[in-house]
């Protein structure tokens, strides 16, 4: 019947889009829940419109300098930040990015982690006088913590650096392409752990790690993974 024909055609098109089925019709609900399109992605979308008209190389993502025709902002599914199990003055945040959303045919060109910290606002004078900062550590989780070993034994450090507290949000970026490639294999993705350590005994210090306004339900730490991949079947050379 025409309706079945239409469904069949739709399946073909969705398959070309990299979707096994029609996504849930919940865009409005997502937007209402604060799930907005990242501004960087909007910019890229608008720029790509112009680039298409100008006939530039279509399967290169100029913003990241890599080959690709698919850019995903992969959601962090690691829950919200909480007290660390390893130290009293630390906050811990688990990060988990489901990389199985990439189709096997896709070649991963880039996986860039972006973490944004939303600090409690500080008075400028206080900020200048004390030059407050926190130590940020990022660990790769190599085994499931359910197997009995201590959480620390299952971690491998990836990054350790000091981040200054400032009135606005602070961002940290890191290339995790090789690691994220490994996460595509079944059973190999245990995610990451981000630990924030206040290097001061000042009791008021840890208070600065709190969100700007709890009623805004903003997490202290927001993380996303930008994954750029190339589907070679959908990006043919211009010189074919």
């Amino acid at each position, binding site marked *: 019947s025409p309706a079945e024909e239409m469904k069949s055609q739709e399946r073909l098109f969705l398959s*070309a*889009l*990299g979707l096994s089925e029609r996504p849930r019709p*919940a*865009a409005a609900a997502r937007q209402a829940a604060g799930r907005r399109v990242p501004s960087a992605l909007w910019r890229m979308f608008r720029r790509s*419109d112009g680039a298409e008209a100008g006939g530039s190389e279509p399967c290169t993502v100029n913003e990241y300098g890599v080959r690709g025709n698919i850019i995903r902002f992969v959601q962090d599914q690691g829950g919200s930040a909480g007290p660390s199990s390893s130290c009293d003055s630390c906050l811990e945040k688990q990060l988990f990015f489901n990389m199985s*959303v990439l189709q096997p045919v896709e070649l991963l060109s880039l996986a860039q982690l972006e973490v944004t910290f939303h600090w409690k606002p500080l008075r400028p004078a206080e900020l200048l006088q004390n030059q407050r900062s926190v130590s940020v550590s990022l660990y790769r989780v190599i085994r499931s913590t359910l197997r009995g070993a201590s959480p620390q034994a299952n971690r491998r450090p990836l990054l350790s650096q000091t981040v200054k507290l400032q009135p606005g949000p602070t961002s940290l970026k890191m290339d995790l392409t090789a690691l994220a490639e490994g996460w595509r294999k079944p059973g190999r993705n245990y995610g990451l752990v981000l630990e924030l350590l206040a290097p001061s005994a000042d009791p008021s210090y840890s208070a600065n790690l709190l969100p700007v306004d709890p009623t805004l339900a903003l997490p202290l730490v927001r993380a996303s993974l930008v994954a750029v991949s190339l589907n070679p079947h959908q990006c043919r050379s211009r010189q074919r």
Partner: protein
Amino acid sequence: RSTFHAPLTPSSVCRARRLYVDFRDVGWHDWIIAPQGYMANYCHGECPFPLSESLNGTNHAILQTLVHSLDPVGTPQPCCVPIRLSPVSMLYYDNNDNVVLRHYQDMVVDECGCR
């Protein structure tokens, strides 16, 4: 042999026609974030003998129109098909709530030809 060619009005000759695909019409507006639709166009029209240069015919198409003019029943006219297409980018949510920007080749018909 004499052949008869019905006069063709410009509108019936092979060329790109305007087609706007509105994602609301196909029920995809609730998961495609942008664009809401795009000018996809399509090719339609005849490829008559003699094939003029404006119809972007291949040598094969020129010969096919010649044979068609001699044997209209046994040999069809060449097809009016897209010969230049351009890409479109789409922004959408996948089923894992990830926002995806994807670049698709060959989505817009820019030019048609007889092939």
